[in-house]
């Protein structure tokens, strides 16, 4: 390397390091509210509500004990179980409906398959409030109100378009030549699906499932309107903290963190495919 180009290279390297530091600082800044939430959840209520903030106060599990209803108060377990049932069951339904549909849109496509694909996408753009009232009236007249299975059906419809789009793009990655070769070797359709398609598409299917789980777990509007005491989900349980109840910051933080943990776990697990899911398969 000649001495003439050494100076610009060095200045570029210094600037690069500076931008790295900037990225770190902004990353930490964005994470600060979550870190503060985690720290506060381990503080006593008195230490949580100080100004200036008590960074180094003694740690305690009182917030979590309060949240789980150890000292009286509503237990969050029914809501957590409801959310788990609604999210897992709806994700399973989504996969059962989306896998065959994606197959018919990619590996053996029907006529006008892109139109069908875009029909699924267009339903995602219909706002939830547009159909909420008829669904509420229907549920009220058929005794489906406050029933977790109604949420399962609705969450399935909410996530099915995303899943069809994602799955279509994953299945389209399976080379047609392999399928044809397997077919020529005498393999029948179920065998081809299980032995050839599934192994290639499995990571994509897993990511799809995780993203559907996240959206179901997060949902509030349907759950708020259609459930009550029995089928209340975790986000609805959280709305109980909207009005202040004296010193309750540690409890709120513990509740928010516990209820967000499944989403954080699922999100980090699906990190690489997250963009593809959120952009409905448009970005890879």
């Amino acid at each position: 390397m000649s001495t003439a180009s050494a100076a610009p290279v060095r200045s570029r390297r210094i600037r690069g390091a500076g931008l790295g530091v900037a990225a770190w600082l902004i990353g930490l800044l964005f994470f600060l509210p979550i870190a503060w939430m985690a720290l506060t959840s381990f503080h006593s209520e008195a230490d949580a509500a100080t100004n200036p903030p008590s960074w180094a106060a003694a740690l305690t599990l009182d917030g979590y004990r309060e949240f789980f209803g150890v000292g009286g108060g509503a237990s969050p377990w029914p809501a957590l179980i409801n959310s788990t049932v609604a999210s897992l069951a709806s994700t399973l339904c989504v996969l059962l409906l989306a896998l065959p549909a994606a197959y018919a849109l990619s590996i053996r496509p029907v006529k006008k398959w892109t139109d069908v694909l875009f029909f699924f996408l267009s339903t995602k753009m219909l706002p939830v409030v547009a159909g909420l009232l008829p669904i509420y009236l229907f549920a009220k007249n058929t005794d489906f109100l406050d029933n977790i299975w109604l949420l399962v059906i609705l969450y399935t419809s909410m996530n099915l378009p995303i899943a069809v789009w994602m799955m279509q793009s994953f299945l389209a990655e399976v080379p047609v030549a392999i399928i044809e070769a397997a077919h020529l070797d005498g393999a029948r359709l179920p065998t081809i699906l299980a032995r050839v398609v599934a192994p290639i598409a499995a990571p994509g299917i897993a990511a799809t499932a995780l993203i559907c789980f996240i959206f179901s777990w997060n949902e509030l509007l349907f759950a708020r309107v259609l459930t009550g005491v029995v089928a209340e989900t975790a986000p609805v349980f959280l709305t109980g903290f909207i009005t202040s109840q004296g010193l309750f910051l540690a409890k709120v933080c513990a509740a928010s963190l516990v209820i967000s943990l499944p989403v954080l776990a699922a999100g980090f697990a699906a990190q690489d495919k997250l963009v593809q899911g959120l952009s409905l398969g448009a970005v890879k």
Partner: protein
Amino acid sequence: MTATTTAPMATAPVQSAGKPASRLRAWATRAPLLPALIFMIVVTQLPFVATLVISFFDWNSLYPDARSFAGLANYQQVLTDPDLRRSVWTTVLLTVTVVLASLVLGLGLALLLDRRFRGRGIVRTLLIAPFLVVPVAAALLWKHVLFNPEYGLFNGLLHYVGGPQPDWISDTPLLAVEASLIWQWTPFMMLILLAGLQSRDHQQIEAARVDGASDWQIFRHLTLPHLRRYLELGALLGSIYIVQNFDAVFTITSGGLGTANLPYTVYQTFYQAHENGLASAAGVLVVIGSIIIATFALRVVSSLFREEASRA
């Protein structure tokens, strides 16, 4: 909806519907699709049709016997009611502010993360985290833990520098809601734009650099045009989600202080005021607004989709 592409992969001609055998085969091809398709039509399209019908009735569920056909009266009332008109404006303002701010921030972060530096993976993970907090929990976090005027973190930090101690939510309610949403949606934009940056043609950029183009010139003339489609996609998908936002408005201000957007107003109109007809008319208007955004969104998605298909 409108999709202009034709099937490039469909090899089996299903046109000749005359022969029973080929018709059978056509149905065998369609069969796996039908459950999902029928399910979507029943669960999403039928309720909307019902909403459309109800929107033409004067119907308060507290007085079920007084239900009567009202023509366009509900729409007239929705469009002239000052509260509802205000909520239309609030929805526009909220959506535009959040989408633009998170798009700009997301672009900056994506550019920072596109470079190699120590711990890039960790920073990426830290930045994604806000998007992975349950929306209600995130709203509660901002409302009680950050914004609280007496012992919230913001005023706590301001205390160190001797700054003022504002009551964030009462003083700037809409901005408070927007701030929490921008915090949650910036990671989303960053992820989409980062994917866009990483799909650039690096040889072309190297060539431009060899030819003496400055970083700004490369950004302005190569990166930005390439990112245009990703920016559009982020803006439109973000708009679709944020137009529908309910959680943050419901949690942080409960629709008070002029922050009620359309979804919240529709919810309140039928859930608390029991005005079914009025709520449905407002719902139909939300749909019309969404269709306008969606038409653009579908066009962008379909052009990206075609690009991917032609590349494959």
